[in-house]
């Protein structure tokens, strides 16, 4: 568990499916991160189980950002693993030497505009460094100006443009070396 000034970052739990439904069904918040999710009301915990599977496979994964003041879940920040030969999300084991960790973040829209993404991502980055991640990138769609601003605040610089497996062009923002 990580603490910042206003947030706690912790492991996902199945009950997070409830607050995150507001994110997954929001076309605006999901615009640059894969689109809204299909209806999983028959299995509402599915997305959280996907996160937990990644944790199990990689020993890292997304962390849930909760407001310290009232325990409200505001979003997520953490690590995803890409296969850089195909730019497909995957696991360390499947990607082998093509594995590249990404620091990613997403906020439920009602919590936008408070600096939570920057605060959560910065803490998640410190944690990523502490678990031995060296090169760290954030993969951001060219039109996603909000996330670009977060990346810039984190001291990232835009680098190579790659073609993601599913959603096309994205810019690799390089995090400063520790």
């Amino acid at each position, binding site marked *: 568990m990580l603490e910042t000034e206003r947030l706690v970052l912790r492991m996902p739990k199945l009950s997070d499916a409830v607050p995150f439904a507001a994110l997954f069904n929001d076309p605006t918040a999901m615009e640059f991160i*894969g*689109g809204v*999710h*299909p209806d*999983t009301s028959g*299995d509402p915990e599915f997305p959280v189980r996907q996160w937990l599977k990644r944790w199990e496979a990689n020993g890292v994964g997304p962390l849930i950002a909760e407001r310290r003041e009232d325990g409200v879940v505001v979003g997520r920040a953490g690590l995803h693993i890409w296969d850089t030969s195909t730019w497909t999300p995957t696991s360390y084991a499947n990607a082998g030497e093509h594995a590249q960790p990404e620091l990613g973040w997403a906020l439920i829209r009602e919590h936008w505009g408070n600096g939570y993404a920057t605060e959560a991502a910065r803490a998640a980055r410190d944690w990523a460094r502490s678990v031995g991640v060296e090169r760290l990138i954030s993969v951001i769609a060219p039109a996603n100006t909000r996330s670009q601003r977060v990346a810039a605040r984190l001291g990232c610089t835009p680098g190579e443009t790659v073609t993601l*497996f599913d*959603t*096309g062009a994205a810019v690799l923002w390089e995090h400063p070396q520790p």
Partner: protein
Amino acid sequence: MIETERLILRPPRLEDVDDFAVAYADPEVMRYLGDGSTATREEVAQVIERSLERWNANGMGLFAMESRETGRVVGRSGFLVWDSEGWTVANLADAGDRAEIELGWMVARESWGRGYATEAALALREWAVAERGLTRLISLIRPGNMRSIRVAEKIGETFEREIVMTERPSLMYSLKA
């Protein structure tokens, strides 16, 4: 990207337009698809562009079926979101709880009869469940399209009911994952 025994399944790219154009220009391939008409190269390029927009909006869409042996695109398979009220193609966000997700396929005639459609559809059914949490898939098939009905049955779909799509009847096959 998804690999099967003989295929690589990946979202289409504009460079695929020539391979796709062959299939889309073939009346025999198009006979039971959409309104049954063939499409020009320019129209195929638009199909590819639109499908990339759908990927962005829905986190799923069409996949090109690339032969691992030759690197050529032999067809397409993948997911189309329908608004079940009126059966028009939609985005998940707009269709809301009226959304039905179709798993469809199309193979260029020179590659018929090799089981490519079934191979792709089985892999995509698995992907839909494992990666997107889908619990129901449909396939909309024109009456008489026996080749596609066979594929639907091979991947575990059964006939559910008849619907009207683009003013003509279609058979809805479906599966519970």
